[in-house]
């Protein structure tokens, strides 16, 4: 177990896993909708870091052909990077849509707290039932 091995394991495996769990903790404990969204983004970041890290090659450089490059240069695997590029764009689209949903929820309930939204929704439905009867 050399130091290099431990650092590499942290960089590729345990570090992203920790970030995913920080995001999961945020989703489970926070009550503010915006904070939940930020936690989902943090989880996204952890998964993306893991995917990029899997493609790492020892002493690899960025996969771009440049002037003055010798045949000794080794590229890192570009395929996970392309996958992560796709994942980032899709997470951006999902975040934009859910942020707009949060704005609509705030307009309806005047609150971002999920428990108070739940209470208001219950009172609304109870009132409606009474009207129906």
């Amino acid at each position, binding site marked *: 177990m050399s130091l290099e091995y431990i650092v590499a394991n942290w960089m*590729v495996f345990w570090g992203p896993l920790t970030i995913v769990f920080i995001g999961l903790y945020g989703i489970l404990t926070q009550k503010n909708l915006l904070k939940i969204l930020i936690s989902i983004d943090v989880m996204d970041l952890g998964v993306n870091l893991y995917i990029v890290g899997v493609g790492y090659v020892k002493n690899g450089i960025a996969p771009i052909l440049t002037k003055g490059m010798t045949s000794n240069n080794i590229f890192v*695997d570009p395929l996970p990077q392309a996958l992560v590029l796709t994942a980032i764009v899709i997470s951006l689209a999902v975040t934009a849509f859910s942020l707009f949903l949060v704005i609509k929820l705030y307009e309806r309930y005047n609150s971002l707290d999920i428990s108070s939204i739940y209470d208001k929704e219950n009172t609304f439905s109870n009132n409606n039932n009474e009207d129906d009867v």
Partner: protein
Amino acid sequence: MKKLVTILVLLTILIFLIINLSDLQNYFVKNSNISNPGLLLYDKNNVDNKVSAGYIYKNVDKWPDVQKQTVSYGTSGYVEGSANIVTSIVVGFRAFDTMGEITVLFIAIAGVAALFGLSKKEFEISEEIEPNFVLRNASKFLLPLIILFGLYIIIHGHLSPGGGFQGGSVIATGVLMFYLSFVSFKENPLKYTFIETLSGFSYIFIGLLSIIFMGFFLGNFLKTGTIGNIISAGIIPILYFFIGLKVSAELSSTLLYFLDKE
């Protein structure tokens, strides 16, 4: 109390994952030479064994001979002429997948636009609030430079880090700064929708042209040229330019909806 329970649940999942994912680590380590305890995770992570090798060596047809092939800056005559290999994969090898990606982005923005119609208009930004003097004057100076930088990133997407998605985001940040500094500035989102639709259709049109010339969808039917020149890599820079236009228009119109300006 609830946080304590959450932490306990998370710890349980973590221990479960550690026990089970240790096998996953063995998957990486399994093929490597155990007598050399260096970076076990990476020692066998050889790109030559992967699909990406064909793109790194710019040779998909003669895949077993890839190690003998060398490709360098300033040469020509290979399958893809793009110097940035990530761009080769995103817009060359997986161009159809990228079409699905921009479709996802379009659907998200269409959902935002559909929800915008339900707005009660209670939370509009007051036009009496005058932004800071520094912001107002600096944004007039900075907006053209930001758009120029975004266009540079888009056009050099096949030569340097960057591309359509990144450059489009840069242009959208410039537009956001302009909105924030001039509160009374309003724009019709239909203009953005027009640009977006036009670029999306151009992407598909180029793909259909490729059916005529090469026989399959989104093939690289132009000459690839010399690696490292701006005019090289066939249709890749053209496709990335349309992607950049589409992303910048989509993000700008989203910002417009978020700031409640119509």
